[in-house]
């Protein structure tokens, strides 16, 4: 069984982002870019399933401009066997990504498609659910535990939901999206980084996948959130209680 993992290149989680003065978006020039942390968790999970002998191959895929190759290279250094880059400069919203993923899934026939539950740039939390819908596959979103039963061809998924944990059993093939506590992703070691240089990254275009990218969303503007006005530092618990009672009126 193959496992396909979608990975996204985003502004590194530790970078303090800056909104562009012309409100057209967030500054990404000369900013450190990394693999979306949730995608790292997705890839780690795929690698662990393969290492347990339940999968034969892990394929990392990414979409967007040429720089996505860096992210795929990171994925290969973590341990993915090969990679596919859907090369496009068009703006990609989750619906287009889901359609492109569907086309890749149909070409590769993986038994599992694993994605991060959301990207930390647009915070959409949509793509996994959408591609599952398009493929008519069952979905286990926000996974914090994944147990694959190869014999029965089912996967049991613990999901982090508002009121606790929910456990589902899904027939394969299935889509899983990963939450933070699923695993701790590995670091790529130097030998593996060297090895990754000889692994194959196949390039395809949306046209080759018979996909025309037609966004139905328009980004109007990106602005800074309103700032909270500076607060005060108090000197004692008594003062705090007094402020909360008599100034803020919340106690």
């Amino acid at each position: 069984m193959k496992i396909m993992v979608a990975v996204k290149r985003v502004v590194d989680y530790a970078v303090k982002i800056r909104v562009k003065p012309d409100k057209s978006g967030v500054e990404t020039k000369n900013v450190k870019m990394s693999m979306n942390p949730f995608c790292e968790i997705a890839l780690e999970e795929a690698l662990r399933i393969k290492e347990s002998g339940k999968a034969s191959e892990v394929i990392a895929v990414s979409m967007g401009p040429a720089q996505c190759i860096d992210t795929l290279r990171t994925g290969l250094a973590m341990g993915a066997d090969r990679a596919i880059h859907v090369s496009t400069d068009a703006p990609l919203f989750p619906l287009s990504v889901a359609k492109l993923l569907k086309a890749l899934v149909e070409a590769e026939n993986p038994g599992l498609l694993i994605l991060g539950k959301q990207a930390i740039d647009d915070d959409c939390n949509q793509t996994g659910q959408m591609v599952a819908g398009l493929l008519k596959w069952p979905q286990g979103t926000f996974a914090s535990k994944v147990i694959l039963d190869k014999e029965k061809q089912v996967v049991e998924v613990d999901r982090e939901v508002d009121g606790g944990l929910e456990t589902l059993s899904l027939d394969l093939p299935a889509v899983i999206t990963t939450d933070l506590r699923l695993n701790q992703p590995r670091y790529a070691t130097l030998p593996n980084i060297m090895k990754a240089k000889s692994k194959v990254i196949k390039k395809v275009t949306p046209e080759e996948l018979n996909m025309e990218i037609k966004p139905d969303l328009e980004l109007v503007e990106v602005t800074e959130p309103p700032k909270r006005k500076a607060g005060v530092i108090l000197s004692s618990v008594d003062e705090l209680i007094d402020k909360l009672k008599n100034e803020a009126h919340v106690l």
Partner: protein
Amino acid sequence: MSTLVVAEHEGGSINQSSLSAIAAAGAISEGNSISVLLAGSGSSLQEAASHAASSLPSVSQVLVADSDILTHPLAEPWADLVHLVQQKGSYSHIVSSSSSFGKNILPRAAALLDVSPITDVIRVSGPRLFVRPIYAGNALCTVQYTGADPCMLTIRATSFALPQMPAESKSHAAPISQVDLSTFSEVALGKSRWLKHTSLEIERPDLGNARIVVTGGRGLKSAENFKLLEKLAENLGAAVGATRAAVDDGYVPNELQVGQTGKIVAPELYMAFGVSGAIQHLAGMRDSKVIVAVNKDGDAPIFQVADYGLVGDLFQVIPELLEKLPGKK
């Protein structure tokens, strides 16, 4: 303009977050006709339907889908249901709350309808113009939906005031109709099974809509110490929250996590103890009305968003608060 609100219900009434979704639907346009879709099985579903029909003046219709397949919130039948109801009702908008339920189901339904959903909307600026946070709330993005109907949204419950809930009156009663499930497509059904749901049973207000939230971070140092915070919450009638660090270290279960990937809260009073204030955490609480921070480190970023800061040892501050703010009981 007509809007379908995909609602959640529990114990015979509509969830608070779904009431916020109804409020958001009301903001889409004047005279917007609002239909509420409720699904599940059994008597609590029918109860929730009559409750919605009689107590929500802005609702013009309640649709009920009663089927064993819909007893649990599995995405596959639910997304098919939304698809089916949309084909019959041709709504201009479909709205649900950004709860784990809404986030799981709405995008899948949107893919079936071939439209882009817009998640986590915090402001409706026009019928097709919405504001949503990106980068963990460090930027706000205004998006225009330019596609075909329906325009699909999940809304952040803390950003939309609950609609007025008059006492149940005979004068207003929206019609309740049953969804005809005879053509329910079963392509993706049967491929997923709901096994169980586990949660901690606590007698405290729900984190999502509590008036006061007290949160602990790594500064609490242990699960044992978190009990101190729980005692304070009890005295204040507050919900307990936690940072990712505190959850990762096993002090409390994940469902208490506040932040970019956890719960988004906006209580009247948010008290953070031993919380450094990582941007991912701030994303989950920055809309709170009053923020209090107690931290040993005077340079902790949490102080930049706090209305009242106290630089000190929480192991001294919490006991003092417990002593000076005794419980009501």
